[in-house]
């Protein structure tokens, strides 16, 4: 297993107003992975990133980056981190290449025009290097933010909602960029509330809501552990209602006359054999059988609803 590059222990943040944004969050990030932090708006994703990167003062806990404490050895820790913020925060009148050079200088790195060129080319910004930032499209501006974050050769890159408000084509484009960075050996932590994004890119997924990390797991394992599968049965004759012979199997009739059976892959008995036997016994003729895995989105919604439900019942207790 890859070594841990970022270690978060009992990280807490209570804002001045008394709002607790992070409840003792602990998390290890492995070198070279893409980690997706998933959560609804206001879950604490941006606060967590801000606390690690130095934008927000933690109220408690400890963070180390490659062994460097972000509080006591902030120079060593921060120089390993690149941050791409959620908002497109750029000086509108500055030229692309100057703002990227500025970022490198700010992190104390000597001038390196070859590297700047490499970063700009990698992000398809080289042709735009002398353009003022205000003249760029929204997607290009996001690329400039990434270029700035990469200008000092970080080993960890934080992407806070990299594709929020970006059209589908550009989103896929951005994913390609991120995959390319992973191939270069950069560890990537991205926050998102698009499940599709986590599903498409992440090696591991963490789910956060109301400042608590609900779970951290390998994406595939998570999906198979919590995944529910659906079996769609198509008969020769479309159905309007569940036939009496098949009642008691929890079937639903879909709009197109097919039958839907939902089962848990982890259950001891999935009920498939029993169902198919019943179909055969009833004399109905199968035309097609199809299975699908439920998406991460459904898993996520299930988790968050569960947590919120638990919270509310807790509050109602005397």
């Amino acid at each position, binding site marked *: 297993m890859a070594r841990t590059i970022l270690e978060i222990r009992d990280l807490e943040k209570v*804002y*001045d107003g008394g709002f607790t944004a992070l409840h003792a969050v602990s998390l290890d990030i492995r070198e070279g992975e893409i980690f997706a932090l998933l959560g609804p708006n206001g879950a604490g994703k941006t606060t967590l990133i801000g606390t690690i*990167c*130095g*934008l*927000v*003062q933690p109220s408690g806990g400890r963070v180390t980056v490659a062994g460097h404490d972000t509080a006591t050895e*902030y*120079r*060593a*820790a*921060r*120089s390993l*981190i690149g*941050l791409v*913020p959620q*908002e497109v*925060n*750029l*000086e*509108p*009148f*500055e030229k692309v290449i*100057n703002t990227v*050079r*500025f*970022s*490198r*200088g*700010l*992190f*104390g*790195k*000597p001038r390196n025009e070859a590297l700047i060129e490499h970063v700009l080319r990698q992000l398809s910004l080289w042709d735009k290097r002398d353009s003022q930032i205000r003249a760029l499209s929204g997607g290009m501006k996001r690329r400039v933010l990434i270029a*700035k974050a990469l200008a000092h050769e970080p080993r960890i890159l934080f992407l806070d909602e990299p594709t929020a408000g970006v059209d589908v084509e550009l989103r896929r484009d951005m994913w390609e960029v991120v995959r390319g960075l992973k191939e270069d050996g950069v560890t990537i932590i991205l926050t998102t509330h698009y499940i599709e994004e986590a599903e498409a890119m992440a090696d591991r997924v963490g789910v956060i809501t109301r400042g608590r990390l609900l779970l951290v797991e390998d994406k595939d394992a998570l999906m198979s552990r919590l995944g529910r599968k659906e079996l769609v049965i198509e008969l020769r004759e479309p159905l309007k209602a569940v036939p009496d012979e098949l009642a008691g199997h929890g079937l639903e009739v879909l709009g197109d006359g097919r039958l839907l059976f939902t089962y848990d892959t982890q259950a001891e008995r999935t009920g498939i054999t029993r169902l198919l036997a019943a179909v055969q016994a009833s004399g109905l003729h199968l035309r097609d059988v199809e299975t699908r895995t439920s998406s991460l989105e459904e898993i996520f919604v299930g988790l968050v609803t569960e947590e919120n439900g638990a919270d509310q019942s807790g509050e109602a207790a005397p």
Partner: protein
Amino acid sequence: MNLRAIAAIFRFEMSRTFRTLGQSVVSPVLTTSLYFVVFGAAIGSRIQEVEGVSYGAFIVPGLIMLTVLQQAISNASFGIYFPKFVGTIYELLSAPVSFLEVTAGYVLAAATKALMIGLIILATSFFFVDLNIAHPVWMVAFLVLTCLSFALFGFIIGIWAQNFEQLQMVPLLAVTPLVFLGGAFYSISMLPPAWQTVSLFNPVVYLISGFRWSFLGLADVPVGWSLLAITAFLIACLATVAWIFRSGWRLRP
């Protein structure tokens, strides 16, 4: 010490200056020339001289101070306020830099620009009046100290300000009146005795008096006091900036 970071901030700020050359340099020079025309030539011709010096020459140090103070404050306050406004402050906060380095970058850039403009105005004034500089080394020292301390002051205002109105408020409502009442256009000794005493509570009196002494050898207050006042102001500003960065006030929630 992350010297490269200081240099990066300095370069970035100076490039803003050169990008907006008209607004940054031409406008203060034009304004000051107008002062020379109005106060030096038109009104000054009726005033003749103050303490043995032609009125045109008498107001040169005050005019330079007026512009330098405004420039140092507005450059530094805008320099740090703008990243807060457009959100690029995230980069400063997440970079491996200390408060000293960030302050040094912005304050040095703002002070340099103010100093440049001060020197340009000085050069311009030679076109309007006959001018001798009695103590050139002290003149430069006063100018540099003023640029630095008021750039620091502007930096604090920029961190404090939460909107553009607040950003303009202190320079407009406090600094400009203090400069006008600080003897930029007259000698304190020309005031009635009661107002002379009131003037001694105006810190800008010490600045202008000291600066005028370096030009003309004339001073409203002893030059040592002037030096002391500006140094004390510099230290107070430094202490405030140190506190701001330690506490994260208005920067790091």
